[in-house]
Every structure is written in C-alpha cells, then in structure tokens.
C-alpha cells in the first residue's frame, strides 16, 4: 500500500488539514473503546494505559486528557478504581473494568469489527485496483 501512497499527488494544505481532522475524529471515536480494551486483561494505572494506547494503537494525546476520560468512564460505571501503593513508594490509582464495562466493551468491540469489516470491503477493492494500475504502468515503463 505504501507504493500507492508514494504515487499520490501532493495534497494541498487545506486538503491535508481536512485529512488530519478526519483522522483525528476517527481516532477520537475509538479512544473509549481502546481504553476499555486496554483494561481487559488486567488492572492498569494511567501511564501504563497511555503506553498501550501509544505503542499498540498509535494514539497520542495530551496526557491529562486520559484522566478526564477515565473519570467519565468511572462516573458511568464502566471502570472501577483503587489506590495501591507498590514498591516504588508513591501510590498509584489503578483502573479495572467493571462488569458493566466488560459488557460495554463486548458490544463496542462487536460493533467496531462489523463496521470496520464493511468499510474495508468497500475500500479495499479500490486500493487493490490502484495498486494494480501502478504495477502495470511501472512494468510498461521498463
């Protein structure tokens, strides 16, 4: 796919801004799902959640924002929290999924998989076609 990207005409500034906004909106929409999913296996504290979001999902944000979202998730009963003091000396606030959060995560995950599969079915043939054209034109040049 990267060869297609490299052959695309350069985007104007306005187009690039629109693309950025679209992608930011898309990522915002999936942030809650990503946070809940990160808590699926075990309880985590803020920095651990941030690392998972950055390393596994490519999501970066102002770090204070994570705590606002966790506060909302807790207020909605989707996560539970507790202060734990470990060997490092300072207490950390750990979050884990509540039973309501588990259910919510399953519903959101299912919706995400169905939706993303449909969009992929719609978009993938277009990209494959573009790539085939690119390969064809490269072959003719040689």
């Amino acid at each position: 796919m990267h060869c297609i990207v490299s052959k695309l005409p350069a985007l104007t500034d306005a187009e690039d801004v629109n693309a950025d906004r679209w992608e930011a909106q898309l990522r915002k929409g999936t942030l809650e799902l990503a946070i809940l999913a990160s808590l699926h296996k075990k309880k985590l504290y803020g920095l651990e959640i941030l690392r998972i979001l950055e390393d596994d999902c490519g999501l970066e944000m102002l770090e204070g924002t994570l705590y606002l979202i966790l506060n909302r998730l807790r207020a909605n009963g989707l996560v539970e929290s507790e202060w734990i003091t470990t060997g490092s000396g300072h207490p950390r606030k750990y979050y884990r999924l509540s039973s309501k959060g588990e259910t919510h995560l399953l519903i959101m995950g299912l919706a995400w998989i169905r939706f993303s599969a449909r969009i992929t079915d719609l978009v993938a043939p277009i990209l494959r076609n573009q790539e085939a054209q690119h390969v064809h034109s490269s072959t003719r040049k040689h």
Partner: protein
Amino acid sequence: MSTPAPVNIDQYLAALRKACKGVQPSVRDEFVQEIHSHILDRLEVEGDHNEAVVSRILSTLGDPKVLAKQFTTDVLLQRATRTISPWVILRGLAHWSTAGIAGLLVLVATLFGYGFAIVCFLCLLLKPFIPDHIGLWLSPNTLTLGYWDGHLANSILVGTSLRPPIFCVLGTLGPTNGPIQELVGVWIYAICLVGAGLSLVATRFFAQWMIQRFGLKKVRLIERIISSDRPAAAWLL
C-alpha cells in the same frame, strides 16, 4: 540522580487545584493526587529529573487551567445528571455554556423552563392578595400568564408572554393597548400548579438528557490526538 524540580511541579499542581473551582474538595484532591502520581511515574521513567525534563512532562499533561476547567465541567455535569436540584443543574450548565454554543443554548432553554415554573409559583402566591392583577391575560396581540398593572392604555403585562408569530419571553414584551381580558378566573390555581410541576419535571429531564447526549460526549482536550506512525496521505489506507 538529581532531585525533581519541586517548584515547577508544585506550581503546576497548585494551579490545577486552584482552577478546580466548584468541585468538592475530596474529588478535587483525588484528581490532583492522581496527576501528581502520573508526574512521579513519568519522572521514574525518564530517570533524569532536570528542569527541561520536568517542563516537558508538564507540557505533555496540558495547560493546568484548561485541564481543570474540563475536569470541573465534567464533574459538575455528572452531578447535574444525578440530581433534582435546579441549582445544581444550572450550575453544571453554566460551566458547560463557557465551552461552546451548545451549552449556552441548553442553559438558555433550561433557564426559560425554570423561569416559567417560577412565574407559575409567583402567580399561585400572589393571586389571593391581588386577585384583580394576576391571571391569564389576553390583549389584542399578546397572551400573558402573570401580572397586569390595571391600565387599559399603555398597560404593562409581566410574566410569561406569547406574541405571535415568534415572541415568547419571560418578563414583559412592553406596553400594550386595547381591551384586556382575563381568561381563566379561579382556574388559574390549577393551571399554575400543573404548569409549575410539569415545567420543573420537563426542564429537568430536558437538561439531563442534553447533558448526557451532548455535554459529556465532547472531549475538547483530545484535539491534539495524532498518529505517531502516520505516513504522508495515510488517511487513504
């Protein structure tokens, strides 16, 4: 290993605590403690605790005033969704209204709803004392629930007024001329009682639904979400 720069961190946390106005002290302190814990975690990871590192850590957390404002709005809106108190609901909406037009519109609509309930209550209270001045008044172009000053020319009607096609106000629409007729007599008591009750309940549900639907969905601070691995024009993939 050098010690952290406590002045900067303390200043950041003090600014955060100070800007969380209106939040219960226990809730505010827990939030500040959690941010402090995050800073300590980041310092542990960085290893080096010089001023530049501390400054970078604090900048990645975001402006403390903006963070506190969003947190305060969130907490107050969450409280507003779990209460029947008009004061708590209006307080949450007042904070939301500073964040955008949606909050402002909901605040205005909610004020109108509670205002109508207050007019109904005032009518109930005042009708026994000034029965000839309290009622549901129909003048040539205005329908008003509330007070009439008793004049036939340049008369003032104060309360909840409707004037077709679009005017609907709390207060007065200005002087009016012509015959004025009272429409409901002693039924005003029943109308005001039902009106006040319905208005209080409907306004509460409207405000809480709008908060759930729009107020608690937006996270303004995450505008800066970016992809760390985004190639040029990767939005096509």
